[in-house]
């Protein structure tokens, strides 16, 4: 499976290739080769640690967008021993960019939804509209939120999108209303609800399925009000300043913990989720199930009240005593 190589992981991948080649020769008891292998492996481990312990925000963006990362349907396949995708918003069409359905996880029912990208497969990516959902995707998710409430089962959302689709049809059919309605729906849902930012948490398109009791984020994923490229082209008038914008926006997983926007960082396999997708999927399953178990034990009214308070608390402001009330006009 040919996958794009990120610039900063190139020396590491080169070294790993050398190690692989050398292994091919090392079938016998050649001590010299064994010695060289050990040396290279130590070097690779050190390099891996060096690269991945000090990733810049911009490097994380590239990791978060890596087409080899697990996608929503793959996470669902790991989370649920059985699952069934459901289609359509019962209004206009089905949106392949935002998938949703039912699942049995550890024997218990849940509903799931998430943005679906096409990975390295160009045709599939086009069919999935690169994970840019239309209003129909959000309205399909709304159907599933309603089902979760009606049948008292939890909801799990997987977020991975640059944003909602900026197009004529999306505007005509009310992309704003579809997202806005979902925000209110999620803030009225009595079921336990966990959201996981798995790759790109892009603006309103991400938030549109992520107003949850607990928001989790993968180590190298990010969650932002705007793409770094978009921010750079607006505030620097130069989209090549995206790395600077990525710094300024403070959107990496550790920043988000500090800001109170996410509850927990899900660690990724060394080198990122694309290096060992199976392991990443297993970890996500474990962490999601742990949170669901805790949330299920709570009183539904109390849980919803806490979800509302969680979002009411977000934001930082001050009161300025100098700004005394003015005379009413």
């Amino acid at each position, binding site marked *: 499976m040919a996958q794009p190589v990120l610039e900063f992981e190139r020396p590491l991948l080169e070294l790993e290739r050398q190690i692989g080649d050398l292994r091919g020769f090392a079938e016998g008891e050649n001590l010299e080769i064994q010695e060289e292998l050990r040396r290279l492996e130590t070097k690779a481990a050190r390099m891996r640690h060096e690269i991945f312990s000090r990733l810049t925000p911009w490097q994380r963006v590239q990791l978060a967008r890596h087409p080899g990362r697990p996608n929503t349907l793959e996470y669902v396949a790991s989370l649920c021993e059985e699952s069934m995708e459901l289609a359509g918003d019962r209004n206009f069409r089905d949106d392949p960019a935002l998938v949703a359905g039912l699942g049995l996880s550890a024997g218990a029912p849940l509903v799931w939804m998430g943005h679906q990208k096409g990975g390295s497969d160009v045709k599939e990516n086009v069919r999935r509209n690169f994970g840019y959902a239309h209003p129909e995707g959000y309205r399909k998710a709304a159907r599933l939120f309603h089902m979760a409430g009606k049948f008292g089962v939890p909801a799990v959302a997987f977020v991975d999108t640059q944003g*909602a*689709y*900026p*197009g*004529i049809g*999306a*505007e*005509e*059919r*009310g*992309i*704003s209303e579809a*997202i*806005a*309605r979902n*925000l*209110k729906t999620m*803030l*009225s849902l009595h079921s336990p609800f966990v959201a996981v930012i798995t790759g790109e948490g892009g*603006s*309103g398109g991400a*938030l*549109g399925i992520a107003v949850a009791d607990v928001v989790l984020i993968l180590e190298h994923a990010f*969650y*932002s*009000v*705007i793409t770094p490229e*978009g*921010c750079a*082209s*607006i*505030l*620097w*008038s130069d989209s090549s300043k995206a790395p*600077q*914008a990525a710094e*300024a*926006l*403070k*959107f990496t997983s550790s920043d*988000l913990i500090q*800001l109170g*926007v996410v509850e927990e960082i899900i660690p990724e396999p060394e080198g990122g989720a694309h290096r060992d997708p199976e392991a990443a999927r297993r970890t996500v399953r474990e962490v999601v199930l742990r949170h669901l178990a805790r949330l299920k034990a709570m009183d539904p009214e109390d849980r919803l009240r806490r979800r*509302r308070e969680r*979002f*009411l608390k*977000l*934001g*930082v*402001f*001050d*009161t*300025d*005593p100098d*700004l*005394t*009330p*003015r005379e*009413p*006009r």
Partner: protein
Amino acid sequence: MSWLQKTREKLGGVPRRDMPGDLWIKCEGCGEILYKKELDKTLWTCPKCEYHFRISARLFTPMITDTFVETDQDVVSTDPLGFRALKRYKDQLKQARQKTGLSDALVAGEATLDSHPFLLGVMDFGFMGGSMGSVVGEKFARLGRRALERRQPLVVSAQSGGARMQEGVLSLMQMAKTCVRLAELEEAGVPFISILTHPTTGGTTASFASLGDVILAEPRAVIGFAGPRVIAQTIRQELPPGFQRSEFLLEHGMVDRVVHRQALKPTLSFLLRFFAQARGQAAIGT
């Protein structure tokens, strides 16, 4: 967000309409030279072509109220990210305060119209493109809480380029924060009336502004999620004429009525009368 800038480029260079200055002004709709004193009488709409000038919150508020007492003007941003692009966010805030005399992009307060009390928020594009950051979210939430406690309608007039990116993801979270109150008002049977003015885009449209029990829009206002230029770039096509204007939204079922500014006060008055009666019924039920 890019639509914010695009809209700014288009609109931001235009001098503010409520500043005392020359006696005459050229209509941006039809080019007619208009006498400013006359515009005060027509509520800053062109008598020839009905073009609606974008006006400040201070100018707009009396047009839809009989009385208004501002609240929470002491809530201010603290620059939570220490944000700096070409300019420092702190400096931008200072400039916006000086320019507008406002503490942030939403003016909140207690209003009456025809003796009906309600909670009113009016956004002002002049303050950093009317962008929604933590302060706008907090002031909205406080208005919503009072609406809930007093069982009085909440009315918010939007005029915003979307989320304030200088506050990063915290500004995105304000979309959810405003919707917490709307979910509570829904349960309590307290009405929310949304007024959309030019322009209303991005995270503001994709949160509270699209969730009114009744949604009114001023004529010809640009209302949408993505900015027109972003869409044109994405689809590499010309946009249809009138795209994302109030009348387009009316046609597509996204707003209830397009209302001339001069008709806003009687329209709002009717809605307040209607909901006063309707709320009476709900109150008996609870």
